[in-house]
């Protein structure tokens, strides 16, 4: 097991040492740098902040934004908030599931794409909406949604 994070990450979180209230922020830094939060990372964070590892794991599993397994290179987040739900987001979800061969929360085997649903992206007037690699796409149909995901995959080569 490594005994320290990569130096860039370590420098970033250095000033939070022994500060339990920074836990969520530190976990966010770790995930941004490493992609997900492994048991090893939890142990390192526990050491750094001086809090029990059980509390770290409790926080990691409580919040939707934290992930405990590797994620895809591309992140597709389909909104299933009320306006999108009423706008038939479930049909778009079905189309994406069929196309990618995974269900929400899963990542394709080649680690290319992770499919997620999110309760509301706050762009309800453009429903149904999804975010692909942090870019918003609105007024979707099942066909356009699949095409947008394909384009993101192609552009990455």
């Amino acid at each position, binding site marked *: 097991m490594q005994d320290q994070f990569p130096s860039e990450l370590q420098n970033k979180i250095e000033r939070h040492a022994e500060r*339990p*209230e*920074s*836990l*969520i*922020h530190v*976990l*966010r830094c770790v995930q941004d740098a490493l992609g997900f939060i492994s048991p090893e990372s939890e142990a390192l964070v526990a050491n750094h902040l001086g809090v029990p590892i059980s*509390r770290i794991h*409790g*926080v990691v599993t*409580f*919040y*939707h*934004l*934290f992930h405990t397994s590797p994620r895809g290179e591309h992140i597709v987040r389909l909104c*299933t*908030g*009320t*306006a999108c*739900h*009423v*706008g*038939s987001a479930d*049909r778009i979800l*079905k*189309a994406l599931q069929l196309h990618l061969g995974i269900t929400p929360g899963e990542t394709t085997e080649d680690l290319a794409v992770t499919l997620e649903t*999110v*309760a*509301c*992206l*706050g*762009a*309800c*007037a*453009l*429903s149904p*909406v999804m975010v692909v690699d*942090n*870019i*918003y*796409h*609105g007024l979707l*149909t*099942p066909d356009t949604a699949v095409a947008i995901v394909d384009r993101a995959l192609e552009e990455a080569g």
Partner: protein
Amino acid sequence: MSRPVVSRAELDELKQQGLARLAAFEQRITVCNGTGCRACGGVEVKDALIEELSQRGLSDRVDVMPTGCQGYCQRGPLVVIEPAGIFYHGVAPEDASRIVSETIENGELVEDILLEDPVTGERIPNRDDIRFYTGQQRIVFDLNGRIDPTSISDYIAHNGYQAFAKAILDMDADGIVDEVLRSGLRGRGGAGFPTGRKWQFTRDALGEIKYVVCNADEGDPGAFMDRSLIEATPHAVLEGMLIAARAIGACEAYIYVRAEYPLAVEHIHKAINDARDIGFIGEHILESDFSIDVHVMEGAGAFVCGEETALLQSIEGKRGMPRPRPPFPAQSGLWGRPTNINNVETYANVPPIILRGADWYAKNGTETSKGTKIFSLTGKVANNGLVEVPMGTTLRHIVFDIGGGMLSGREFKAAQLGGPSGGCLPEELLDVPIDYESLGEHGAIMGSGGVIVLDNTACMVSVARYFLDFTASESCGKCLPCRVGIPTMRDIMARITEGEGELEDLDRLRKLAEMIKSTSLCGLGQTAPNPVLSTLLHFEDEYRAHIEDGICPAGVCEALTGAYSIDPETCKACDKCAKTCPTDAATGTPGTPPYTIDEALCIRCGACFTACPFGAVTRAVRS
């Protein structure tokens, strides 16, 4: 601007400089760069306009201003030419050259990107003639679309921080609390508690160290006014918080922002840095004894953190689990210290109250609900977007005047208000004035202000089930009524939508709902049964149709839906059904009715039913 502002005279000087900077241009093109318009290419449009002006050598005379969300998100990207007020919608980067050559240089209109009146079909050149805007009364949203959200200079030019200066230089803490109390402002996060009283409690609480917290964890699906406010006028929210801090004697403030709102996070960080630069955050502000520091805390995706005690836990770096109240945060909040929590919209109401006075503010609204409220209007209505209206406005005005009525070929069925904590208002209640009390009487709540318009293709049982799915998955699990009760209700609802329901289920739902409401620990559980209770109240027939007749009248519940067909008389051969059909079951020749549906290929997804603008697609009752 690195030297702190130390007096009102210096603030006024900044204001004059800001105004001069704005007045240095003959014309200004504002381009909406809120999250909604960005999704349709608003940033590219802004860049194309800047490039076009520069090529024509007009950059010195014409300004391009990226603004925050202007509210008419559905029509984005929005472009407005000032001072003429010419309003373009759905603008593409390719339109930049025509906008500059025709409108900017020659004062002519680019017809095809003018808004079309949904009723008359006429083109509307001026923003001030668009019903979506004229039907509103914008106090909190006043500056949205008129300033660059990342410019403190723009904000100051429009009287920004004048209220804060007044609160520090001309008023004492009791005076501020009294002004807010007299204004009648109530919390815009949903519960509607009088803001002034909350401030008074925190001010009166014992303790040297006190905190001010802004709840920007807008998790209610279907509400996005808080995102818009922080994106468009971050300084207004900040100013409201600073005034609150001054009133209660706080020395530190936190803004808890939902992580799903990256642009809002960016803008509030920028606003805080700029306010710090001119000395409005820091020590001895305006040479007074008032000092404050402000922090941003990004959430990590948990709906329950919108509940105030859970939110405080989250700021402390813990699982966002609510705790019983009392003690209320006003007595014991963040790290056990007295803490004042309000939401974004509430704080944004404060600067106008302080600047223009409680009496002016209290003239708007009803007897018990003062001021305006922002609603996010979405669903099957012609105009989607953010709508600010005085309290007491009817739902009819919001949906049929500002909203432009239903989408063509649709019938109003209900409006869902207040999201997973709220309820539905049916057609016969369209004329109820919307304020905290009237909505409560009819089984809905103001909530955070989400209004989702439903038409005859919405199944009320399925909608209620949807909300229970949501609250069941977001329950933190701390208290039993919510952890076990909501999934139990959800299972009953699932049974009904799958055709396995029994009449006794209706009673079971009501009993469970009452139990969960009265015994849950926090607002999430206490309000989670509302969508079921309200649909049972107004749409019990629909539940009975599912149970007794095995029919889903709206044709949404797949287990209860039979074959689809197209009425040859009504079909206009527009091809929309064929385009949307995932299995190519709907086919025909564009322009030559009728289209047909191949029953063998049809998977009964209902896509064509929703897509048809003429109501030509019908579905049979399951045999």
